[in-house]
């Protein structure tokens, strides 16, 4: 994968701490309340996973954020304004909502040019993004000959045309093979490392667990939780596994902090209901060296399933 050109966010975005702000957003389709009073915000420079089972309201929420669907009530802003009031939205936000949004008889390059020309982006940028997603060799072929992975990358290229500060991706890993998922993960990490923001939706936590910093989980259109992955694991009974040459001292230090500990079969220390950051801080304060520090216990997928089945604490 080619390296992404990093840049500092523009001065306009620096004045806005919340890149995305959703206030009591609701959407009703007849009798069905697809999104129910959804309030959340996303800060600049983060990769946020937007999670929920199929039909939870993720895509509807994204469409409202991006001005494609009108909320029944509530409002949302992107970079401080409703999407349809942004002066140059393509230069601020890139979005991929479906991997199939192409005319099959049009070439990949022409697809990008129908978008870039509409907002005055030069053809040189089209060629840049084609190279960025490694599609320059297929640029003049009709899209109907593209694989799903190529279509995903063409969608991403379209989103990147305006060199945006925010990427919004709806289920981008759907149908990708493991190599494609890895490519996407590396790409997003590279993109976000320059201080940009990513919001990525998925119905499979494991698909994006290695990519995101934090998660928003919704179910039945309602926000279930908003936290970092470590907090999420800890809140539902996660375990931090520690290896140290001085386990007894570390166990005592943790217990003084009110943390319950136990010992695993392979003689590692297991700290219950905390985070690895907290364990690391306690070890440092106690002057104990650490050889291994990892969060385990409930798998993230179990946590996700618990939360979306309504059995976990809010």
């Amino acid at each position, binding site marked *: 994968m080619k390296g992404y050109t990093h840049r500092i966010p523009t001065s306009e975005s620096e004045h806005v701490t919340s890149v995305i702000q959703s206030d009591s957003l609701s959407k009703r389709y007849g009798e069905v309340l697809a999104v129910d009073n959804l309030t959340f915000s996303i800060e600049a420079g983060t990769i946020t996973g937007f999670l929920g089972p199929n039909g939870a309201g993720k895509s509807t929420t994204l469409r409202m954020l991006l*001005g494609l669907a009108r909320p029944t009530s509530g409002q949302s802003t992107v970079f401080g304004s409703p*999407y349809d009031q942004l002066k140059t939205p393509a230069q601020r936000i890139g979005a991929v909502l479906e991997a199939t949004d192409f005319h099959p008889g049009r070439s990949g390059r022409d697809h990008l040019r129908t978008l870039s020309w509409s907002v005055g982006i030069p053809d040189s940028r089209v060629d840049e993004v084609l190279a960025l997603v490694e599609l320059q060799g297929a640029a003049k072929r009709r899209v109907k000959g593209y694989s799903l992975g190529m279509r995903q990358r063409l969608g991403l290229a379209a989103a990147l045309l305006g060199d945006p500060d925010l990427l919004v991706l709806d289920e981008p890993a759907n149908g990708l093979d493991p190599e494609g998922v890895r490519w996407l993960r590396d790409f997003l990490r590279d993109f976000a490392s320059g201080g940009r923001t990513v919001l990525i939706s998925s119905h499979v936590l494991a698909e994006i667990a290695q990519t995101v910093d934090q998660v928003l989980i919704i179910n039945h259109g309602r926000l279930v939780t908003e936290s970092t992955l470590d907090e999420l694991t800890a809140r539902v009974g996660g375990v931090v596994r520690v290896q140290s040459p001085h386990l007894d001292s570390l166990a005592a230090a943790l217990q003084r902090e009110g943390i319950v500990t136990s010992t695993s079969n392979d003689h590692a220390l297991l700290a219950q209901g905390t985070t690895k950051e907290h364990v690391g801080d306690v070890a440092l304060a106690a002057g104990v060296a650490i050889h291994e520090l990892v969060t385990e216990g409930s798998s993230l997928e179990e946590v996700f399933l618990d939360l979306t089945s309504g059995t976990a604490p809010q």
Partner: protein
Amino acid sequence: MNQLRAELLKIRSTRTTIGLLLGLIALALLFTILTCTLSPLNQLVTEQEQASLLSFGSIAGVFAALAGVMLFTSEYRFGTIRPTSLFNPDRRSLFATKIAAGVLSGLVFGVVGEGLVFSIGLMILKIRGVPIFMTGANEIELIVGAIVGTALWGAIGVAIGSIVPNQVGAVISLLAWGFVVENLVFGFLPKIGRFLPVHASDSMMGPIEDKLLPGNAGTAVVIAWAVVLAIIGVGLLKRRDVS
């Protein structure tokens, strides 16, 4: 202007429009060569009979309307309405741009269709030794009326595509209206039928048929149809969610 360039690229970058254009050329040539060659001479003795024969190029209006319909319906059919709307969230501006693109492509269809029919048809009639009764002014009215009418059908097609985003539904509706409903209404109730868009646009080409509106009135009626449909189309486009 950027958006219009992009819309015109959408038209040029698939085979749909070129297919429609080739279909128009084939149909125009076939009809013109057959009718101008085979029509009995005693049916070509008035200006109206000759004008009616040479007005077949206005069939380009059907092709222009289909191309206009595709400008919206193919966006919905293939999902490109999503990236299009993300790049251009002002839907009124998007609609206006597509109308302009529909009119421009309609002009091309009109020039090709009526240009072929008139030039080849007139040539065949002259070769057959048929005395030409049309005056220069009437010839201009026929040609300009056919081309402008076809351009307006491009706009009407765009509006219909916005009103009925389902491509099959829009195309069937358009063809059923143009070839069945209007002809039935005009056949049985010509005083009403002449105000319908196909027959109103026919009247833009001059007195090619009895019972049609005068040319200027026909032009005004077609424009009114285009405006009313455009108002409905843009209203629905603004209200409708892009799913």
